[in-house]
């Protein structure tokens, strides 16, 4: 389902297999477990690490497992609820995060990519697609919060959510949703790892990094269930470092 390996200062989370990487309970749990192990490893690794998430095959992720959910509202809501803490784990992760979008990323899969700090995408194939409007599903509130935090241009947000626009990498880059476009999946993964190494080399304190990330979009963090540190706690941290 997914693997985690450490290459130097970079942790690489791979969604394995040439399938749609549908976010089922099993896959979400598997990814959460890997992300938790990264957070733990970073504590002992010290400052200067980064995470890359990459997919094998034609899909990064085609979203929540709607096939399994079928027409059951409970099942679908269950998956929506299950994805939320994974999104929280990523937004709170004490290191820079990069999504290597090596294939289609739709709905929950697109959200997963957005929960990373940077996005590198293959330009030859694959689209980013918030499919909910087309399939007749409302967007969960925390999805909207993350979309609003990461896609700040009004017409870009409208195109993604209200028009169900399917974005190729180049268009996504122009809209500020993707940071770099690469020819194919191998180059995309390589570029993501290279960026990860550059960011890891800055040797940022992970706890501070995560704190600053959360202060950039506190509403999204609240919506996703993360409690931001108080100003008092931040001041104490500052004083302890003087």
């Amino acid at each position, binding site marked *: 389902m997914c693997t985690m390996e450490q290459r130097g200062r970079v942790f690489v989370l791979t969604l394995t297999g040439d399938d749609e990487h549908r976010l089922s309970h099993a896959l979400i749990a598997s990814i959460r477990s890997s992300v938790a192990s990264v957070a733990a490893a970073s504590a002992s690794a010290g400052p200067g690490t980064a995470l890359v998430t990459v997919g094998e095959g034609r899909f990064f992720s085609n979203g929540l497992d709607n096939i399994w959910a079928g027409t059951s509202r409970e099942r679908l809501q269950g998956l929506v609820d299950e994805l939320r803490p994974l999104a929280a784990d990523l937004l709170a992760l004490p290191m820079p995060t990069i999504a290597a979008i090596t294939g289609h990323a739709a709905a929950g899969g697109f959200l997963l990519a957005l929960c990373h700090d940077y996005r590198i995408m293959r330009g030859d194939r694959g689209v980013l697609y918030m499919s909910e409007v087309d399939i007749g599903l409302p967007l969960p509130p925390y999805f909207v919060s993350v979309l609003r935090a990461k896609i*700040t*241009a009004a017409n870009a947000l409208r195109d993604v959510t209200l028009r169900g626009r399917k974005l190729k990498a180049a268009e996504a880059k122009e809209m500020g949703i993707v940071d770099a476009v690469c020819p194919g999946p191998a180059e995309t993964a390589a570029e993501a790892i290279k960026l990860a190494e550059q960011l890891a080399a800055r040797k940022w*304190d992970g706890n501070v990094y995560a704190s*600053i*990330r959360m202060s950039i979009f506190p509403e999204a963090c609240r919506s996703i269930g993360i409690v931001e540190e108080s100003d008092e706690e*931040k001041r104490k941290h500052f*004083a302890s470092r003087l």
Partner: protein
Amino acid sequence: MEPNNLCTVERRGRVHVITLTGPGEHRLGPALLGAIRSAVAAASAGAGALVLAAEGKFFSNGFDQAWARTVPLHLQATMEDAFRALVADLLALPVPTVAAVTGHAAAAGCALALAHDAVFMRGSRGFLYMSEVDAGIKIIDFFAEIMREKVPDAVARRDLLLRGDRMPAAEAVRRGMVDVAVEGGVEDVVNAAVAEAEKLAAREWDGEVVAEIRKAAWPKLWSKVKDYSAAAQVAVRPRL
């Protein structure tokens, strides 16, 4: 207003120009913040617009951490409070404000520049730099709010705050953080900022209306700093 060697005040036409003096980093410690606040308060009396500029290589390199090291934790808050009060004063000011970023503006120095209505910046030298991520310092809420309100683009905010990019003027203009990159030296930047301020003053806007519209334009930031403004402080003093 008492003279001090931290900043000067001059009138150019209708523009009230405050200049942070000397070749140093213009670190925003309690003394300099107090001096700037006094100078800003003087702007309300009869000026049509305000420009904040600096001498030397730096606009401001941020908070005075050397000072913070010399005082216990509960007194360090006075520096942060003074900065919050200055931001409140700028938001409530009944005249348009223009920052003349004549040199490097880092951390609180960068936030101070962005807290003005317009930002002119030296094109050939100097950069905006939110140094906190590199220095390992967390960003408290009202401070982050300045950045959230004044740097609305998600990518610009990430690159500035989460990657610690050093942004020269041209890039800052492209990303919507700075209004104009001015070629030339420090004086050229100040002159351009003053010219802009003069144009704004010539609109002869009602000062109270300017202040109300500005507070309404940045409501979240205003709500987080308003209790620290000079007016709020006066209001809490008991009447004899």
